[in-house]
């Protein structure tokens, strides 16, 4: 594959946008709406309480990441008009599920090996932990709960996972494998994850967007909130911003890496949101939080395009995504 092919593909995607965001869900301490993601984190924001949001039923034996995902998915599916009081409003086969999480089952895995070593036997383990030991438990739990029978993907792909999930959602829709996708990123906060990441605070939350074939949302009476455009994957932030396009963004989400030595900023004059700095280390959830933030930006009257960038210069790759205002010329 030549680089030219990649660039041609990126341009083609940008010119022929086929997917849009039609729903958003958040389970983030201190941010109830996409617009609130763009404000400062309130002091003393209370942790998300899944039982308060969904009731206790169905939460037993579910790990923290799965519980957060359930809150968030419910809100996103309802927001997109895909879930009513009688269940799904579209065929379950038409809905793909893409979950981004690096640390969702880290606590379960660490606790199990610790217990085996302490007791000198596996006899004390709980069989209820079997699903939680599998990294895809979040994706399959959501599928079972809502009857989502389309492609079901669990991406554990490092800091770019959230944006990678949005890209694969668009790919699944373009290829005809699904008409829409629930894309959700989630990371829990616990002792093992803090030690592993070195972060003093994880987001302990989830964000979801429903990505859908253009026109499907409006046909249900649901507005398109952002258009999903070109994607890029590069070595570092600078290269990613360069690849994303000719149009200077109105605003961008991402780390402050890739600064131009001449003026000390990656994109001179363009405001930047650092959601990890504000809401805590978000890892795989970051890209989806950024998409939700872009929806908040457009809802508040902001123009496009908006760039979302995840993966710092020291990471294995940087991923980028262009989001356009819903009224942008197609």
């Amino acid at each position: 594959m030549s680089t030219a092919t990649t660039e041609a593909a990126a341009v083609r995607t940008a010119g022929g946008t086929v997917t849009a965001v039609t729903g958003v869900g958040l389970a983030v301490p201190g941010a109830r709406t996409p617009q609130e993601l763009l404000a400062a984190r309130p002091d003393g924001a209370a942790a998300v309480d899944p039982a308060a949001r969904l009731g206790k039923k169905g939460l037993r034996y579910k790990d923290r990441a799965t519980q957060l995902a359930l809150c968030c998915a419910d809100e996103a599916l309802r927001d997109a008009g895909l879930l009513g009081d009688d269940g799904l409003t579209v065929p379950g086969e038409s809905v793909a599920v893409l979950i981004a999480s690096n640390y969702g089952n880290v606590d379960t895995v660490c606790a199990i090996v610790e217990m085996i070593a302490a007791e000198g036997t596996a006899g004390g383990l709980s069989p209820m932990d079997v699903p939680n030991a599998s990294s895809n438990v979040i994706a399959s739990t959501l599928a079972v709960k809502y009857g989502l029978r389309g492609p079901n993907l669990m991406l554990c792909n490092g800091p770019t996972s959230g944006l990678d999930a949005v890209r694969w959602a668009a790919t699944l829709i373009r290829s005809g494998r699904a008409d829409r996708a629930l894309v959700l990123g989630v990371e829990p906060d616990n002792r093992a994850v803090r030690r592993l990441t070195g972060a003093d605070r994880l987001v302990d939350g989830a964000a979801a967007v429903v990505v859908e074939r253009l026109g499907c949302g409006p046909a249900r009476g649901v507005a398109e909130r952002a258009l999903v455009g070109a994607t890029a994957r590069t070595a570092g932030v600078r290269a990613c911003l360069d690849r994303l396009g000719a149009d200077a963004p109105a605003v961008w989400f991402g780390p402050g890496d890739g600064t131009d030595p001449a003026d000390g900023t990656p994109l001179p004059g363009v405001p930047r949101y650092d959601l990890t700095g504000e809401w805590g280390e978000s890892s795989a959830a970051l890209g989806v939080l950024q998409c939700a933030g872009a929806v908040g930006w457009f809802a508040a009257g902001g123009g496009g395009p908006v760039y979302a960038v995840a993966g710092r210069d020291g990471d294995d790759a940087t991923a980028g995504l262009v989001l356009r205002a819903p009224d942008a010329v197609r």
Partner: protein
Amino acid sequence: MSRLPVTGVGAVASIGRDPGEIFAALCAGRDGRHPLRGFNRDWYNADCLYEVDDRPAPQTDTVGRATALLLDAVGQAARDAGLGDDLSDVPILVGTGLRELRSLELWWRDGRPFGAERMHFGTALRERFGALDTHTISNACSASLYALALAVNLLELQEADMVIVAGVDVITESMFGLSDRLQFDPPDRLRPFDRDRKGTVMGEGAGAIVLRRKAPADRGAVHGWVRGVAVNCDAFHATAPDPHGIAAAVRQAHDQAGVKAEDIGLVMLHGTGTQLNDAAEATALSDVYGPHIGSPLMTGMKSMTGHTSGASGVLGLLVALRAMGQGVVPPITGLDNPAAEVAGFRIVRDTPVEEQVDLAQIDAFGFGGINAVAVVEAGR
């Protein structure tokens, strides 16, 4: 309908260090069962797994084994396809059930050096091959065929001219411990579709293929063709499979490949040796194949490799391609008394069968009811 050439293959498992060795072992009926190589044998009832023998010393475990197996398989496939060590322009999609969670365990419990950046395989693939478009897809036991489905989309949408699809897993102590907790009378070996099967036994391995959009001029370099891959989700149960979801995936794979059930000459069964999987798989196949259920040869490799989880799909695909290329289908071993649900199936047992096969179906099903089914065509 597409017809995408496989131009490179690589694999490692408990029974061999490359696709040729693995295939020879399968045909010879040689399995990779061995007393626990890395775990404390005093802590568990079960004492046998199908592990790759790559540890520095018995009962001495090291971090990064899954990554090492993956790099080995990807390197083999790239060399086989004449690509060399620079894969900076090639997307690499990795299916895995357990990622580097074994290293996480050793880090947490034993204080071994390990970092968050190695939980996914992109870091090592960048270091070794310069790869930038890498994806760790954690889709349990159907992971590598799920990765293959995404690769087919990238090629069909002309977003890439070449993609490497891989699968890898090594056994985690948490998953082994849970299975040991559940299996009061642990199986001494994996016996798919046998009336007396006692459950699955985990295995280790990695497989990789180079898949292209267009056929190379040298047709001799084509190992076979990927015709279609279907993926779906039962949305039924966290761990138990649903025959309806499996049957839907098989039908969809045949549709995508533009073939009928009676055209398929070989089925690489998922065949994990659990009561639930084997019954659900047999029921689904009977439903889809109907009167043609006795037509294709059926086999599987898990009786000799153990259940290699995320690697299992791509390893099955490699075996199917080689079986079609050589006109020899390896057997399932230890299948002494076939279960009632496979009555009428043409399962290859005990010794290889020589037969020319043109089209093969590969099954891979995972926890959470995630199903992936591929159809491949012989390289001839």
